[in-house]
């Protein structure tokens, strides 16, 4: 018997931004940023109680605008960075600023916020609907920032046509290191103590070809986190942040746009990418001629791919075909099932033999709109959340049979 999925609605918000609460290792927490052009947007901290299967949430207002991306700091549980769309914040203002839309709308900015988590003692349930608290802005990550941050670079971003979402990536180890991706440029930020101030310590650009720009980025988790990789059109590029020079590149990783990438947390050179050609590909970055493996499970664009942090044969993908797929890929995992069971009793080995096979473990059909985000929990290896555009968040667990097999 597997646990039924826990479905949680964001109350009429559209949403794209989902992240695990990385620094919180006790509770299964996820952070969701809403996307609305007409209401005050929220950042919701969603806690899933593993024992009772209950969901509780804390809501924080995010007055800066709709949240396109959200990421939580690796060390401080109360730090988050969001990419927000700096649009008018209340319905009233729409009419008044209407003619000036160009000045406000469509400008993407990035900032570091603090979640006011001090008041954890007060009942969350009471808080549920009010959403009174606001996230506290610590510093902006805009390079043409207007709020006194030390930004030496005066590159203009908002030329009216900034088509690509910004992406912000936190270094996997330290709070102080951040990277933002704007159009064709990558900025490397050094965040001061407690995030009070941030400054650009490096930047690198790629020559733009047509309207192609950098999409989503990811820190390279190995070798002390000295590299950052990002999607660029149909390729994946990586830079060394120490020298701000290109490190390696997977040219034409997909036939169309690459939507997301993830590094295998346990194997040094393995990379997963997904894209508009409905495929998920796995690469060895030392040999980018051909992928190690190709999955073609989805019937539309694959928006996100995530390795399980501990059992890297478990891979999640989500797609705008409204599905989330959990795959088992022992052939490219750090610890293939075979070798793992070898030193175990033969009896278990037999039991495992049948179901430890490569391929899809389960397809989750709980969403009714495109699923843009999927994340493993930072606290529990077996729990993951997915978020679809209609604001439905689904928390699922890895099927027990698979789970037990990992233990045995």
């Amino acid at each position, binding site marked *: 018997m597997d646990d039924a999925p826990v479905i949680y609605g964001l109350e009429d918000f559209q949403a794209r931004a989902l992240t695990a609460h990385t620094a919180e290792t006790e509770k299964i927490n996820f952070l969701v940023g809403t996307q609305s052009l007409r*209401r005050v947007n929220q950042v919701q901290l969603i806690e899933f109680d593993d024992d009772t299967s209950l969901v509780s949430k804390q809501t924080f207002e995010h007055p800066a605008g709709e949240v396109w991306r959200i990421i939580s700091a690796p060390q401080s549980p109360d730090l988050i960075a969001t990419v927000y769309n700096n649009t008018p914040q209340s319905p009233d203002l729409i009419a008044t600023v209407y003619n000036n839309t160009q000045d406000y709308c469509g400008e993407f900015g990035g900032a570091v916020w603090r979640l006011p988590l001090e008041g954890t003692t007060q009942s969350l349930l009471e808080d549920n609907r009010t959403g009174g608290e606001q996230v506290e802005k610590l510093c902006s990550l805009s390079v043409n920032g207007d709020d006194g941050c030390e930004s030496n670079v005066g590159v203009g971003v908002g030329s009216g046509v900034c*088509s690509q979402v910004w992406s912000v990536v936190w270094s996997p180890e330290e709070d102080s290191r951040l990277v933002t991706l704007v159009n064709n440029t990558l900025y490397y930020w050094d965040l001061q103590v407690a995030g009070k101030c941030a400054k650009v310590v490096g930047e690198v650009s790629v020559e733009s070809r047509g*309207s192609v720009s950098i999409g989503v980025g990811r820190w390279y988790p190995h070798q002390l986190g000295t590299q950052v990789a990002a999607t660029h059109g149909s390729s994946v590029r990586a830079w060394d942040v120490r020298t701000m020079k290109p490190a390696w590149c997977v040219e034409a990783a997909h036939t*169309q746009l690459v939507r997301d990438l993830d590094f295998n947390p346990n194997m040094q050179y393995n990379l997963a990418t997904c894209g508009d*050609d*409905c495929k998920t590909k796995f690469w060895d970055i030392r040999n980018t001629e051909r992928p190690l493996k190709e999955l073609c499970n989805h019937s*539309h664009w694959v928006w996100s791919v995530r390795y399980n942090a501990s059992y890297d044969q478990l891979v999640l993908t989500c797609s705008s075909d*409204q599905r989330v797929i959990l795959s088992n890929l022992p052939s490219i995992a750090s610890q293939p099932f075979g070798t793992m069971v070898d030193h175990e009793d033969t009896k278990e080995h037999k039991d495992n033999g049948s179901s430890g096979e490569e391929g899809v473990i389960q397809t989750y059909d709980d969403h*009714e709109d495109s699923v843009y985000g999927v994340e493993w929990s930072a606290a529990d290896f077996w729990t993951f959340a997915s978020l679809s555009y*209609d604001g439905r968040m689904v928390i699922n667990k890895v099927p027990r049979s698979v789970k037990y097999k990992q233990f045995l």
Partner: protein
Amino acid sequence: MADPDSKKERKRRKELLQFYGGSTEETPYDINSKHFNLDMYVQKTIKECSLKQLLEHEAGLVSEIQGLDSDCQTLVYDHYDKFIAAADIVRKMKDGSVSMEGQITRLQQNMAGITASSTTITEALQERRGHLGRLLGVHGTLKKLEFLFHLPQKIDECIADKNFSEGVMSYVETAEVLHRYRHLPSFTAIHQDCQAAVARLNSALKDQLALKEGSARQLTESVDLLLQLGEPAEGLCDDFLAHARIKLEENLANLSHIAEGAMGSKQDEALPEHPEDQPDTNISAHDTLADDTTDIQPELASMDILEFVDLCHETFVGNLWLVISSYKEMFLRSPEEGGSVCAGVAMEKLRVFVGELVEQYVAVVGVRVAGEPDSAHYGALTTALDKFHRRLHAITQLLPNTNFGEVALGLVLEAGEARCQASLSALKAGLAANLADVRHALAAPRHPTQDGAEAATRHLNEHLTRLVAATAASIKDRVTALQAFTQPKHTFAVVAEFRRRFCRELVREGVVVAFFLHLTDTVLSLAHKKDKDPVLLLLLSRMCLDLHTSTVHYLLSHCDEQLQIEDKTGLTPLSSITAGMRDAGQTLLNQYVHTQGAVISQMLRRSVEVKDWLGCGEPRSVRRVMRTVLDDLSTIDTQVGALYEDGNQRDRSSDSSRRTYHSVSVSRGGARSAWSYTPSQLDNSLVANLNKLWSERIEIFAPVEFTRVSILTGIVKISLKTLLESVRLRTLSRFGLQQVQVDVHFLRTFLWSYVADEQVLNVLLDEVVTSASVRCCDPELMEQRVVEFICEQS
């Protein structure tokens, strides 16, 4: 013959009659019966008959009695006449016999006189006859003795004249006599002389044997003579075989020279050499072995395989045949003629000898066959192989316990296999050439005009037909050509083992099936190539479908029929090939849909990304990209329509039903504008959710069917989903939303004709508008009327 029989029969019947039913005979009332009782009859008659009847009866009886009386008289007179005549004759005979008696007595006396004189003469001659007989006997003995005395000289003469056979003959005839009388001193001398002469003869014969130029016939003769002279058979057969081997190996060397010449044919250097040395051996071969010498053209360099095999037959095989038969005749005679002990050994020797030579021979022929160029017709080759096989088989029959037929069959099979492989590679090359042709033709610039489109359509169809026809024709040609191997006139074609190997494994599996699999692989590899022409994909998918539905089936059954393969077990079944074809076709078609969908998607995505949706003005027309999309779709439609059937369109919309749909959409538009006035998020998501409740999940990259509508639906779905996702990534102003509304309406107006299910189209288009309104800061839809007006204008 029948008379006594019938008489006997009658008698027997009468007796039977008497035995069984005598009473019926004893009717006393029958006048003619012997039991007739007059009184009873009279009484009965009087009793039964009336007076008149009685009178009539009496009259009848009277006349009958009178008749009988007169008959009786006539008979008596006749008899009397005859008696008188007989008496006359008897009297005449009595008179003649008296004179005859005296004559007979005289004859007897004469005969006795003759006998007496004959005896006298015989006695007188007796003495002389005995004398003459003795004289004759003496004469004969003297003659024989004279022959014996002259025998050694005669043998020497024979040696001098090379007339060995006469010499041997005379010796063999007299040998026994000499042997019998050798205890007489005079005969001993003769005997010794003879022995010496025979020894000379022997050595002369051996000399001849050692001569290399000696022909097989001479050889045989010498050996035969030697055998008659009582030479030990063992040594002789070794000599014989060694000598024969030299000859045969010479032949083989010639043949292999020719074969290698054929291998490296077209090498002009080889030409002048051949006529120099070949004809000599050729002619000598003819002189020596074949009495029926025929003229053979010495154009050996250009000799075809048939002539080669004939030459083989005339030289090597003929010689071998002669050697074997003479050997058998000489050394393997029936056991009572002696040599029964070593017959087994001799046989074994022969077998080893022949085995070695045949092995070499087969190798030589193998070289020649391998050198045979791969032409379209194998008639000559198979005839040659057949001859080769038949002759070796004949040798096998001549020589029991050997199996050269098998060896020959192996060579035939090898040749067949080589041909099959050549056929397969030829087919592959043909396919590659065909595909390259089609690719070039497709890569040629096409004209976008209407005529051009039609021409392109026609071209596509032509290409398809040509491709399929060429493939089918080439396979048929190859099968027909290979069929030459199985013609029943060839003896090897009748061997079951050969038929099984060749027909089933080589031709069917090795050529036809392997080619189909190769075709599938080739086509699939094209599908996964990066720089592919979508039209080619479409064309190939159709080709696969055609092959799947009919051509493969036809070709395979054609092949089975031609090769008479009845037992299909263990062969690749038809279904697996056609299934592979179908899968390949499906993959290609999916690939086509994805490629075309991606092209349009790319266009739409770029257009959405590049446009400034916040700053745009009020929409006045449909964006140009939508037209381009429609143009592209209609081009695709033409392409697909050229190759695929239409397929079913669910709810095929007539004009009126479309109108009703518009009214619905107007009312829904109204609803939307209603919530745009009171912008409640609840309504918004309600609409979207209701939308989803009623619609099924749409698989975007679902596999398509082999119909025009299905293919286009696939492309349209992919394109619209892209539009939806792209719009969701942007933020729109009111006018931006309205622009989307106009575009969507425009698409709705034109796309319906391409899709199978209008419902799907509507759901997708509605979702685009809904998403756009969600992403709009100031969602206010345009009035449907205005939207329609703008669309109509453009």
